[in-house]
């Protein structure tokens, strides 16, 4: 495979960005790359809305007596959770980078169902608009977990409207997953065997499986919740014969797998970045690929670890505990293999790689604290405290958001045709890392000391650690605003990117111009070598 194209070809060429102008060419596009950008802008907007709620919470927690009224605080954390989970993290990497890159990486012209892809974005936007309407009308206060019977009977906020928003956007997630699965099965270029698929694609394949199999369950659960709230059907509310714990089973049957929707794509990005900046094939390709699938499958069997103190049978708890330890193994395998990839590599420190370092470190801490929570007697003490908050922020913010930023920087030249300013980007990565740890590490300590989550007021002895956390959050906020500014600048004014600025392997860099034309490739790509063949070995090598 040739590794470079003559420079001049990247100039003044029609590509997907300048192929057509005007708002219609965007809102009615079926080009996966343009849809990816539609998603990129909309989820960024949601990220900042969700972030604004978080700022409100952190400000409130500066003092033990709080600043806002209880109800205001309760709405803040509820809307923060709902926006961040359903409207930012679930679509984040798959709908933007995944949408953009899956076809490019497997050598296809587009996704299998381009119009359904556009429909996904519309569903997402409609769902988002409904949720925002609920917020504008006064918000909702059930927590993102919607536990019954509080949500079904007691809360007098806009539960139904919010649930409809989440319900609608769920279909967007299902359709994206379906689109990816069909695309990956049927549209790989000649020579792109399963064993040569980039791990980015494997990760998205696993994610898609969860989206297709899990999301219908949350949709049904929300419908039942609506029935209970409107008709008092007697499903979840014990006062009319229902079972509140049943709600939790149904909710977590989706939402635990969903936490893997919120990390597998991040792992997928890291698996691309590390080989590129180590100039070396990924260590243990097969194991990393299989572990994504293992996570997707095992992830469906551990929902009960959210119910250890909720009154489920102790024997059930025991089984869920054991299975939760089991699901940690494939995650650990990935971490070990990424680290081993760097061994004897040729490592450089461009911004994407800095984010990858950050990802490994923070994901390790997040995963290890998952083991604390899977340990029954410890979970009894720390469940529903800040320990859990810290655990999942280490994974979802420390892991997923870092991977997302790393991926955005890595593929920014591909997407925009321009280079971003490396110095600023490294600086921002550092700020994010420092701010993140200062925000969330104190929360582990707070949690073990016994500070419950979702508290507008708290006992005064917890103040010092809370102030540290708020201070960290303000640094983190700067770290997230910087990229918006310099990437926005670079998009218009940055230096033109060569076709393959990182000398990376993969069809999207080697065989598609930068930025890609509407149909991605000028000639049908053919794959003749395994993924990540940085050392240029000519023969097919057994892996493992």
């Amino acid at each position, binding site marked *: 495979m040739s590794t470079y194209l003559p420079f001049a070809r990247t100039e003044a060429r029609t590509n997907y960005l300048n192929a057509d102008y005007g708002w219609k060419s965007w809102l009615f596009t079926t080009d996966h790359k343009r849809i990816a950008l539609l998603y990129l802008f909309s989820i960024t907007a949601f990220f900042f809305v969700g972030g604004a709620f978080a700022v409100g919470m952190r400000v409130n927690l500066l003092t033990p007596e709080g600043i806002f009224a*209880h109800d205001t605080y*309760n709405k803040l954390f509820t809307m923060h959770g709902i926006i961040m989970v359903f409207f930012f993290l679930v679509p984040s990497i798959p709908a933007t980078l995944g949408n953009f890159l899956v076809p490019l990486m497997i050598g296809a012209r587009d996704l299998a169902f381009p119009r359904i892809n556009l429909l996904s974005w519309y569903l997402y936007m409609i769902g988002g608009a409904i949720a925002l309407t609920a917020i504008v009308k006064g918000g909702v206060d059930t927590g993102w977990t919607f*536990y019954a*019977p*509080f949500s079904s009977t*007691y809360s007098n906020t806009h539960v139904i409207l919010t649930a409809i928003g989440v319900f609608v956007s769920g279909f967007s997630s299902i359709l994206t997953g379906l689109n990816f699965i069909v695309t990956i099965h049927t549209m790989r270029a000649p020579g792109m065997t399963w064993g040569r698929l980039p791990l980015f694609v494997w990760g998205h394949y696993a994610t898609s499986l969860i989206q297709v199999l899990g999301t219908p369950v949350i949709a049904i659960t929300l419908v039942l919740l609506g029935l209970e709230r409107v008709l008092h059907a007697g499903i979840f509310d*014990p006062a009319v014969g229902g079972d*509140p*714990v049943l709600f939790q089973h149904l909710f977590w049957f989706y939402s635990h797998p969903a936490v893997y929707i919120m990390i597998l794509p991040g792992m997928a990005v890291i698996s691309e970045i590390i080989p590129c900046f180590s100039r*070396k094939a990924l*260590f*243990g*390709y097969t*194991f990393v690929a299989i572990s994504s699938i293992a996570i997707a499958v095992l992830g469906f069997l551990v929902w009960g670890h959210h119910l*250890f*103190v*909720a*009154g489920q049978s102790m024997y059930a*708890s*025991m089984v869920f*505990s*054991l299975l939760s*330890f089991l699901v*940690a193994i494939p995650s650990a*395998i990935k971490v070990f293999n990424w*680290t*081993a990839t*760097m*061994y*004897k*590599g*040729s*490592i450089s*420190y461009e911004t994407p790689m800095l984010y990858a370092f950050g990802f*490994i*470190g923070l994901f*390790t801490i997040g995963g290890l*604290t998952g*083991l*604390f929570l899977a*340990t*029954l*007697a*410890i*979970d*009894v*003490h720390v469940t*529903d405290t800040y320990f859990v908050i810290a655990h999942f922020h280490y994974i979802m913010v420390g892991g997923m958001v870092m991977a997302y930023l790393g991926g955005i920087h890595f593929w920014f030249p591909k997407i925009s045709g321009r280079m971003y300013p490396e110095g600023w980007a490294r600086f921002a990565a550092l700020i994010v890392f420092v701010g993140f740890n200062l925000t969330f590490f104190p929360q582990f*300590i707070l949690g*073990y*000391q*016994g500070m419950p989550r*979702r*508290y507008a*007021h708290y006992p005064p*002895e917890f103040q010092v650690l809370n102030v540290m956390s708020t201070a960290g959050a303000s640094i983190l906020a700067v770290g997230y605003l910087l990229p918006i500014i310099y990437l926005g600048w670079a998009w218009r004014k940055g230096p033109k990117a060569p076709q393959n600025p990182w000398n990376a392997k993969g069809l999207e860099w080697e065989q598609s111009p930068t930025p890609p034309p509407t149909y991605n490739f000028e000639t049908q790509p053919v794959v003749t070598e395994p993924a990540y*063949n940085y*050392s240029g070995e000519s023969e097919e*090598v057994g892996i*493992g």
Partner: protein
Amino acid sequence: MGVFSIFPPRASTTAVQVDALYTFLLIVAGIMTALIFFCVFFFAVRYRRKNQDDPAPKAIHGSLPLEIAWSVFPFLIMLVMFAWGAKLYFQNYTPPLHDTFDIYVTGKQWMWKVQYPTGQREINEMHVPTGRPVKLILASEDVIHSFYIPAFRLKHDVVPGSYQTYWFEATEPGRYHILCAEYCGTNHSDMGGWVTVMKPNDFERWLAGDTGGSMREQGEKLFQQYGCVTCHVTDREGRCPSLLNVFGNPVVLDDGRTVVADEAYVRESILNPNAKVVKGYKHDIMPVFQGQISEEGLLQLIVYVKSLSPPAPRSGKSAAPAPKANPK
């Protein structure tokens, strides 16, 4: 406790055990984190690219023995965590059958109502003796709450429509937080209070203080007020079972099952009698009391029904100087 101590006060036997387990996990996690961080740093520095046109290094495609080692070895350590954690969990959520001091707690938006068999009632306060197993029976009048005592390292959700229980043995006299740990609406974060741990003698004195009649007496009143007495005591036609010696003993049901009459059983028998019908008696004779008796009243009735069973034979003396049980 200093602000920067990572441990909250330790005031029960479980607190010591949970902290030991936590320390074990901290050590394992610390070692693992140090290992990964070290490798990442070391490789990043040792193998940094010195010259832009260095040739790409030789590929290393993996190693089966390594993959097996780093899957199996961590899993073995996890099995230790699992077994240790599960053992403690069973212990903490399985109250001893005899000799516990029972306290009845009702959660209600946004307060904890605490009742003692001797009749004391408190709101957002709980008193317990050291050196004696205390069993909590937890009920909710509305939504799910969670009764959390960080100093004991214990909590359990309080789920409407059912009874939940856990038990502990306090060790250190003092006052410790009670917190609600399950989000329950507007004033969730204010739904807290204090547990006062007392030396047995002090506790005895506290218990002897003024009450408005013991829980049993209040229960007996309700037993008459709701007409239970007409069927279960004065009924002469044998349509209704006697409640003497029911509590704590096996009951044979008309579908052939046998259940032990615990708090949850009695609660269900009152609220929804047809769910489990005693063998030899008919459906639909006992009225359904669902929605008619408050959670607190139910607990009082249960204490009364309990008092109709003589105390279970003591299975050995507890070493701690247990206060004399109140005369039943």
